[in-house]
């Protein structure tokens, strides 16, 4: 077998292992899905009436806000999943079996790839649940199959990027507790961007950050695809570029951390 076939085969083996873990011990998965759903309900029903009027659209109100906030909640869901991934990776690295893997002739990236593919699948599952609940509470997308496909593609790309980053974050500290804290700032990014209110309603300095952080172009592109029927080209390019950059950085960082000598 070629090296590539080995890498794919070993990664698939590791993926099976991670999926078995997730199915048998679903508490982390459930938590990761429940968090964004709770936020969605909170924002639509508690804040939605007021915030929707503040959007300045024709319709306004709760239903307008459900449309506006759903992309933000999707990103929030990904940030929450990142925390779950970091915890799962940190716990796994303390397991004796990973030490065994390190003494076996296994494709180097397989352990990490297994985590990433499993976590991306779980994240997409969580996103599907969020979209389902959003539809129930008034989210009314106006998108054809092509736009939906593009949106799913962008969400997958984003999940991939955030997951590689969180796999690395899961390996930085020695303890599981610190690993669960490191991805926390990601949870703030939807709020400090266009996730819940338009950035032009913020003070100038914050608005500047909100405009230029990675989540905003991703959320704006999703809004364009699902709601407006047209996408700002600059946002789309920025979104894809951010995802590619974060994926590459996360991948290289995670590889480096996995290969470091555990005795130093």
């Amino acid at each position, binding site marked *: 077998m070629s090296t590539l076939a080995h890498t794919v085969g070993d990664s698939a083996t590791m993926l099976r292992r991670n999926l078995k873990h997730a199915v048998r*011990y679903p508490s982390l998965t459930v938590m990761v899905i429940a968090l964004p759903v709770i936020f969605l309900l909170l924002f639509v029903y508690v804040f939605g009436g007021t915030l929707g009027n503040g959007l300045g659209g024709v319709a306004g109100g709760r239903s307008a806000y459900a449309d506006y906030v759903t992309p933000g909640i999707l990103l929030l869901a990904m940030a929450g999943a990142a925390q779950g991934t970091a915890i799962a990776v940190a716990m796994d690295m303390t*397991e004796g079996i990973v030490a065994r893997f390190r*003494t076996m002739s296994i494709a180097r990236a397989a352990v990490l790839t297994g985590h990433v593919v499993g976590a991306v699948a779980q994240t997409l599952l969580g996103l599907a649940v969020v979209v389902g609940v959003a539809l129930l509470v008034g989210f009314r997308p106006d998108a054809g199959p092509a736009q939906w496909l593009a949106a799913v593609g962008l969400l997958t790309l984003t999940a991939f990027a955030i997951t590689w980053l969180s796999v690395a974050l899961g390996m930085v500290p020695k303890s599981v507790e610190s690993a669960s804290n490191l991805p926390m700032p990601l949870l703030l990014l939807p709020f400090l961007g266009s996730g819940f209110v338009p950035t032009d309603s913020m003070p100038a300095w914050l608005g500047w950050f909100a405009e230029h952080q990675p989540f905003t172009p991703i959320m704006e592109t999703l809004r364009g695809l699902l709601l407006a029927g047209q996408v700002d080209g600059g946002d789309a390019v920025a979104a894809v570029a951010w995802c590619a950059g974060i994926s590459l950085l996360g991948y290289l960082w995670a590889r480096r951390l996995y290969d470091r000598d555990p005795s130093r």
Partner: protein
Amino acid sequence: MTTTNFPGAMVEVSGLRKAYRRQVVLDGVDLRVPEATVFALLGPNGAGKTTTVQILSTLIRADAGTVRVAGHDVTAEPDRVRAAIGVTGQFSAVDALLTGAENLRLMTDLRHLGRVEGRRVVDDLLARFDLTEAAGKPVAAYSGGMKRRLDLAMTLVGRPRLIFLDEPTAGLDPRSRRAMWQIVRELVAEGATVFLTTQYLEEADHLADRVALLDGGRLVAEGSPAELKRLVPGGHVRLHFTDAAHLAAAAGLFPAAARHDDDLTLRVPGDGSVSGVRALLDRLDAAGVAVDSLSLHTPDLDDVFLALTGHPTEEKVTA
């Protein structure tokens, strides 16, 4: 077995050094393990046995020295080394969330054995390690001994040529311990090489062709079990005293003995022969030292240490 320098050595180590921050753990260790033999590394807690196994099995890197395992340098070609070895570490390396059978399946998949062959190997190993009944249970529900057996079974998937066993019988009951010894013998009969660590001289005695004793980061003795035991012929005689004055007087007579003031005992290295004990008592009598009672001890790791390093193992641990 042969000790000449033939090229088929499975492990060749020279000048191995390793320190954790300021603490030197291995301070120039040289080792050679010929193919199809059992090598036992003995040492007390903290001697560096696990560290040695971890370096030899590519888990951690040495600070200095050359380490060749299965003909390959561990730093230059770790994957070649990994393809040839199987490791059962000191601490459980099983996936507690999977069942026993799934753990073995994971290993056959990672060794690329294929579906049919993989299933056959899993069934064989489950039977061989007495785990067939527990195969479908999650490992989290296994007893310590069952986990240990599964751990070893996982190591044997893919028939590694060189097998590392770090304290393989720690925590096993006497029956399981004997079963483990039997398996080690079978492995070597099939042509495998076994590198094991242990705290028990008895275990090394039963299994090993060669034994090395690790102390203070160096090998203080190396040889066949028979050679080592010749260095500590019959263990020691433990003398119990009723008061400190007699203990002190006796300690003056035997400078090589280990004195324990807290329980008023003196451990005199020596064989357990009748003539030896008689000579010992004659000397005590002649000096007018009253002994309360005495007991004989067959050699254990403590005695080897006492004889070879002049200090018992406890001192080493607290040093």
